[in-house]
């Protein structure tokens, strides 16, 4: 299997991710209520709803402009912290894509790396701060290693996914240094970070979408 992601495929992924997020309402809201201000699911869900609503327009775009547009839409629709973080991530990734019309696994890896770098820069945060970064950073690292090792696309994607899941779970015992959870007396320790969860869902769905045929 060798993956190829074009605009059509990416929009397919977006629709799947929107469904996954929609279904996670209670769990994600509860996590953000415990550690933050309870709006993370609402924010993310609004963003993905907006993307789905805009899909006709998105379908006409090349991959680079598509990412740019998704970034702008998420930024303004999601709002709060995660809006600007996802916005920055997609906009930076758009630059990485440039005018290429398709992504292979190597470009996907570069895109994900651009995203995590953008998030870290924008959020002035790094792994270990109990954020979405703790999902994405190890996931990207695992993908890079898999590609260096010469794993095939399928196995490389499975490595990406597994590292994301592990990363998400690793936030449970962390104390928050960024985001609203850092004002809690226990800094959110004992609860998984909601942003790490929704990030993980997106990666899981992406892998699922790419591996399904």
């Amino acid at each position: 299997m060798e993956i190829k992601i074009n605009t059509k495929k990416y929009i397919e992924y977006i629709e799947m991710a929107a469904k996954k997020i929609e279904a996670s309402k209670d769990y994600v809201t509860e996590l953000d209520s415990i550690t933050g201000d309870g709006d993370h699911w609402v924010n993310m869900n609004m963003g993905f709803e907006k993307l789905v609503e805009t899909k006709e327009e998105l379908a006409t775009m090349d991959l680079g402009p598509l990412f740019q547009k998704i970034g702008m839409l998420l930024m303004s629709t999601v709002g709060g912290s995660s809006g600007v973080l996802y916005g920055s991530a997609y906009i930076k990734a758009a630059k990485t894509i440039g005018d290429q019309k398709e992504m292979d696994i190597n470009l996907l890896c570069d895109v994900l790396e651009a995203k995590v770098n953008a998030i870290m820069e924008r959020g002035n945060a790094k792994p270990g701060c109990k954020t979405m970064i703790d999902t994405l950073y190890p996931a990207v690292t695992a993908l890079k290693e898999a590609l260096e090792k010469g794993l095939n696309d399928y196995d490389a994607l499975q490595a990406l996914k597994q590292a994301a899941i592990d990363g998400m779970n690793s936030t449970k015992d962390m104390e928050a240094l960024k985001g609203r959870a850092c004002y809690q007396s226990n800094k959110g320790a004992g609860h998984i970070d909601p942003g790490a969860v929704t990030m993980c869902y997106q990666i899981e769905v992406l892998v699922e979408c790419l591996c399904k045929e």
Partner: protein
Amino acid sequence: MKKIINNPNHVVTEMLQGIVKAHPELQYFEGVEVICKKDKKKKVGLVSGGGSGHEPAHAGYVGTGMLDAAVSGNVFASPSPDRVLKGIQEANTGEGVLLIIKNYSGDIMNFDMAKELAEMEGIRVESVVVKDDVAVKDSTYSTGRRGIAGTVFVHKLAGAKSETGASLDEVKRVAEKTITNIRSMGMAMTPCTLPAVGKPGFVLEENEVEIGMGIHGEPGVEKTTIKTAVELAEILCNKILDDYDYEGSEVALMVNGLGATPLMELYILNNEVEKVLSKHNIKIHKTFVGNYMTALEMAGCSITLLKLDDELKELLDAPCDTPAMKV
């Protein structure tokens, strides 16, 4: 939930519509939720903003001698970069724009991104971050201190400086100097309810108050039983005085209500705060008592001290004319 609202999801837009109806000298850009002055003078533009629910902050401080534009997010949620960008565009008259940001990571990220977007349009943008809440440990490691009521003083002094025709760097210098000299400490007596949520975000018992609670209901330093005004003034002032040396200096004082605390109580508190400060040989140059930076319908208060030198004093006393502050 008893609130005078219509749809909980429309509170920000309807509120801003209500503001421009009461203050026709202001202009409202719906959708991007920006309030700015209609009448623009060539000068450094001042933009602030943040989540809604802190009224009169921030739209109430738009006017001569304070802000040029205020950007609103949803209730307690940072405004997105495109909104802030609109605020910057409206405030810009070619002399550059200063962003006054409260130290919440969401605000910082959104304002920073807006700054980059504006710079791509060729607008010169600088920013300052207010972190006056001594309830939280200062830290370069984590997000650190929150920005609360002291922000209003930054609007006032930077606004006065900009009004003199000073350069962006000069206005920024004044804003930073002001920030360095400000400390605040608050206390909450009742919770508040986000309109879209419909029930209080936390609980305080019948006789319980929370010292140091943030203006979004973030945990404070201690839950305790209700105190007298004498005790409260001491607790709040001492926390401030322990953090920064105001001894023997001249200050501006703000006794701020969080939304549901009546003026009677704020004035009683002011009476006690003055006594505590005078024990520390602190001279109060000007006092502001009222609801300046609120947290929806929370009952509670905060105290802010700003150490003044001749420059800051002159800027504090300079005239300003906004819906929520007139000097």
